[in-house]
């Protein structure tokens, strides 16, 4: 496909929802294993089945749910509640940048469709939507459809883990722990548009790794992309001189 990237989404159709569901299929096995692993870990940390399911249904963000387990307790003081909310925010702060990168495409989408659908925004349907838009796609239903499928799978596969405990003895065996990184790396290949991206992405990677070494926590997920975006803007400005 050699279409121009789509400037803005102009439609929300059932066909788009179906297309989103189809595009998300390759990552589903990885997502299901990840969900079962969360369910099992939640059970070991003393969450009830209902609590684990509620977390998957409402928070719906795997990495932050797992990190949240490290702070899980039986006695919830106000300080403990605040701490888990703040940590969740820092783990998921990359979504702020994902939303920002999608925003021009969402400009024409009515708020009644946009704000509820964003509840379903995750790494996987974000990268799927970026690729779809890069190929000229203009149907907002793709973000919704891929998000819905991910949500159902995530919730459904949290349950067996939470009920049965140690389902996955060794998630590394078939490289399951690498499914999402592999998928993301493959998805950015078609997004590469030349030397400008090479430089900007390299800056993002270098700043990210340096931050990861220097600062504990998840700051690298924000510092890296911001540096990459700034580099992209700077290269553009230099090129127009």
């Amino acid at each position, binding site marked *: 496909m050699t279409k121009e990237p789509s400037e803005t989404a102009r439609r929300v159709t059932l066909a788009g929802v179906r297309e989103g569901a189809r595009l998300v*299929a*390759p990552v589903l096995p990885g997502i299901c294993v990840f969900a079962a692993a969360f369910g099992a870990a939640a059970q070991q940390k003393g*969450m*009830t089945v*209902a609590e684990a399911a*509620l977390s998957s249904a*409402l*928070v719906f*963000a795997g990495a932050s*749910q797992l990190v949240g387990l490290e702070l899980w307790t*039986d006695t*919830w003081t106000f300080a403990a509640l605040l701490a888990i*909310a*703040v940590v*969740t925010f820092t783990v*998921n*702060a*990359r979504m*702020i940048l994902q*939303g*920002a*990168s*999608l925003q021009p495409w*969402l400009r024409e989408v009515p708020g009644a469709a*946009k704000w509820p659908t*964003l509840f379903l925004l995750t790494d996987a349907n974000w990268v799927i939507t970026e690729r779809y838009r890069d190929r000229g796609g203009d149907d907002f239903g793709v973000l919704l459809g891929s998000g819905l499928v991910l949500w159902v799978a995530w919730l459904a596969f949290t349950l067996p883990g939470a009920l049965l405990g140690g389902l996955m003895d060794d998630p*590394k065996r*078939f*490289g399951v722990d*690498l*499914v999402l*990184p*592999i*998928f*993301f*790396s*493959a*998805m*950015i290949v*078609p*997004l*590469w*548009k030349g030397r400008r991206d090479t430089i900007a*992405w390299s*800056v*993002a990677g270098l*700043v*990210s*790794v340096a931050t*990861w070494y220097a600062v504990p926590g998840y700051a*690298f997920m924000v510092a*890296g992309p911001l*540096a*990459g*975006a700034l*580099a*992209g*803007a700077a290269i*553009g400005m230099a090129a*127009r001189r």
Partner: protein
Amino acid sequence: MSEAFSVSPGAFAAILGMTAATYLCRVLGVWLMAHVPLTQPVRDGLAALPGSIVVAVVLPLCVKAGLPAVLALAAAMAAMLVRRNELIALFVGLAVASGARAFGL
């Protein structure tokens, strides 16, 4: 069994707090950028953002996970370059990852 389906008030509050924090992350960037004029530098920055996010999230993980991860990701990207099919790329990546680990790399 009824125990398994109970939700304690504290746990409920914690999950609601996590939900609110996550939803804030999901909408904040969209909301903020709606108020930023799309000048050319902003467009250039946004254009570089998707790839930068992926590289910034994946690269430290590669450093941590070692050679099998690096080989798997490189193989998947090469497959994507040739075939432009994410399912094939995923299979190639996973095959290389399990192969590299089986060889004890």
